[in-house]
């Protein structure tokens, strides 16, 4: 989980992610951030994220992001 938090912090350091229950809805991550985050997760976890998982609801929280990583073969 810490690695995901670090990546989020690297992506948009101006936000405190603990304050949001839905990163996309709260404007923490826009569509370009999602694409950047997917690429960062793929590089960091050595995985390929299924295109059909690349929807805002998959990136709503640290937990849902971890689930996407696990689903695509990464160890969190």
């Amino acid at each position, binding site marked *: 989980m810490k690695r995901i938090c670090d990546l989020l912090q690297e992506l948009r350091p101006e936000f405190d992610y603990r304050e949001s229950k839905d990163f996309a809805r709260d404007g923490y991550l826009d*569509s*370009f951030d999602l*694409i950047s985050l997917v690429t960062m997760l793929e590089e960091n976890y050595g995985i390929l994220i299924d*295109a059909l998982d690349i*929807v*805002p609801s998959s990136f709503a929280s640290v937990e849902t992001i971890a689930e996407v990583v696990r689903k695509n073969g990464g160890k969190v």
Partner: protein
Amino acid sequence: MIATFYGKKVTGMLAALPQNVVPFEDEVSNYSFSEKQTLRLKKIMGYKQHRIAKPETATSDLCIAGMERLLSTGKLNADDIGALIVVTITPDHFMPHTSNIVQSKCNLPHSVLCMDISQGCAGFLIGLLQAFMLLEHLGNKKVILINADVLSHKVSKADRNSYPLIGDCASIAVVENVANWAPAYLNIYMDGSRGGMLEIPAGGSRMPCTIETARLQDDGEGNLRSLDNMRMDGAGVFQFVQTDVPPMIMETLEYAKMEKEDINWFLFHQPNRFMLRKLVEKLEVPTCKVPMDEVENFGNPSGASIPLLIASDLAETMLSGNTRCCLSAFGEGLCWGAIVLDLGGMDFCEMLVTDC
């Protein structure tokens, strides 16, 4: 629809580009990207540079520049032309048609059938379909298929969703009857119910252009655009491409009785690098068979994307023997399709930088 066409060959291709190359860095101040985001998006999306026509350039200017090059160098003879198709979503006017303007400026005979088709990113496939059908009635005459757009005139410069990706271009493909050429297997799907994913709301009879429609508005995601501008639901289009395109390509291959391994080149419409990479992963085809460098070098030129890709990346291959290709395009409409055909043995395959 899915259909087989016999004895139809693309015998030449030219891509006519504007001379103006605009680097992403020159425009980045138009968008609300941080410096870090800019660097990331250059790599991930292919934001590097694009070709942008002059403000006064109309679609026909690029078409005419390309046609004049072919006619003046003897690569094309006006008397050999039976039909001229212009596929565009940015016509010069509602009337007259852009194809008629090209015919006139290039001094083509009155016997040449001129036809405009309104189609965007999938326009090369729709144009080929029309060309193949016309050739059934044209004997040894050629069909000139032009895909041309100056999308830069219709996309807001402050729309970071779309403007960094688009480019202007006109492609010219010569299509003719050649006995015993390998069959072409064409598969096209349409879904008008999702048409709002890519739209230019104002400018037609539903919503004529007014001062109001020209007013820039913030969409809440950092993009400024008016109703006169193109609007793209980027996330929706991404899911459409990843969901609908792979099974359609597999269906086309199955219809052609071919496996993925039988295809030498997968030549796809070029929306952006990320979308293409994900599409290739889904299809499980080797990336070395899928050129995807068009957006970073030229921008996405709508219906001209596949011919430009061929002219820029595969010109030598196209001038030598034939190679089996799977072309696929997808975009506004919605429309998505694929064609499996042999390309190669062309009389010419080149790019032209114009002063447009």
